[in-house]
């Protein structure tokens, strides 16, 4: 299943603030096609689950070996043998299944997952993803399933703030951080705007929607060409 959006110019929501984290999670949930198999990355992407309605009929995959993952477990429902990829206790939904790691990653690599949502340090205009390593010499490298997810899911949605604290856009002409995957990101969801990347196209990034900023101003603050 691929995400289809009819050709259109960007929808600008100028008279408002940028999206807060909860609004961003809700918008990503809105855009996940009904009936999808979805993996939500560790950290902020996990919060998207809170906005998936039963009508969306989304089945959540967790790479440590489960389809049909439910919400976070609390109280007596906590089971040390049932956790998500972030090692947080979770619950199972009717129709859930368990499987070993090689099968779990075959689901990704084999192209069976429809959407995954990942955080990022940087995304390039052709869809390269950098989200596993800052490149700092004293940092202990840890990749987990990030590289497998990046190249495996049919659609990779990135969820991040558009600008760093010093105001530099994280959607860049070319990533300077160590790469996680090449030409793998299809959508970038940020507090200021939603972008679509056609990794096989001319490298131009399409703005789908803005929040608290006009496309013109957005273009001025970014080093990539927008359309």
């Amino acid at each position, binding site marked *: 299943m691929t995400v289809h959006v009819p050709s259109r110019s960007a929808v600008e929501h100028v008279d408002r603030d940028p999206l807060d984290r909860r609004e961003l999670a809700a918008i990503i949930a809105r855009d996940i096609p009904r009936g999808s198999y979805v993996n939500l990355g560790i950290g902020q992407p996990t919060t998207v689950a809170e906005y998936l309605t039963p009508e969306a009929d989304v089945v959540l995959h*967790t*790479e*440590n*070996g*489960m389809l049909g993952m439910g919400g976070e477990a609390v109280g007596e429902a906590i*089971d*040390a*043998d*049932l*956790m998500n990829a972030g*090692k947080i206790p979770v619950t*199972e939904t009717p129709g859930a299944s*368990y*499987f*070993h*790691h*090689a099968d*779990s*990653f*075959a689901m*990704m*690599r084999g192209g069976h997952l429809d959407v995954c949502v990942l955080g990022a340090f940087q995304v390039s205009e052709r869809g*390269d993803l950098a989200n596993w*390593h800052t490149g700092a010499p*004293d940092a*202990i*490298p*840890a*990749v*987990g*399933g*990030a*590289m*497998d997810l990046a*190249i*495996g899911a049919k659609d990779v949605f990135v969820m991040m703030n558009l600008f760093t604290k010093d105001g530099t856009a994280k959607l860049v002409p070319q990533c300077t951080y*160590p*790469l*996680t*995957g*090449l030409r793998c990101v299809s959508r970038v969801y940020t507090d200021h705007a939603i972008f679509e990347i056609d990794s096989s196209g001319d490298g131009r990034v399409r703005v789908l929607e803005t929040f608290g900023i006009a496309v013109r101003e957005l273009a001025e603050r970014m080093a990539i060409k927008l359309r």
Partner: protein
Amino acid sequence: MSRTAICHTAREAVAGIADRATILVGGFGMAGMPTTLIDALIEQGATDLTIVSNNAGNGDTGLAALLAAGRVTKVICSFPRQSDSYVFDGLYRSGQVQLEVVPQGNLAERIRAAGAGIGAFFCPTGVGTPLAEGKETRTIDGRDYVLEYPIRGDVALIGAHIGDRAGNLLYRKTARNFGPVMATAATLTVAEVSRVVEVGAIDPETVVTPGIFVDRILDLSAVSNDQHTSQVAS
């Protein structure tokens, strides 16, 4: 010995593990982590070990305790850095342990390949990233792949839920994780289980790891009884 041995002490279950062994250790976080076997390995004393596991130890127990005891020279894992991985962090930063970081799916598939007799395989994960540097690549039907080699263990230590006397294993929920794959890929596979049942008590249709892959089973229900007995005796 080809048939599964049922062990009633942890010491028996880890007997014969040699220095410089490569040990596959199951578990994702603490789920499926064979902590009793790891504790027994610490007591057994094998050293200069290479540990293959998803993480590099949490807190002060299990793998972290093995690392803290100075028995590990190299860790092959996907995600060493966690909020409570301070034992590994300290050893790594002081150069006392080597690290090979492997994408999680590659870790599973390389172990699977070893167990399935595959010589190497072309994998799309990591293409164009630092983790593929220096590796052979090939373009197949227009897509780029990296050549990945199997990871075989001298020993696999895994945690399962129920075993029978024929060596068949069942797992519980996400504690299954690496267990079934690691069980296939080692010369000596040892599983700790919460209890052992008689042959025939597990429905053959539900067996996850067939007994052919399992050399020893440690019956944790018997271990706790033994400990209780020895405490009473002393």
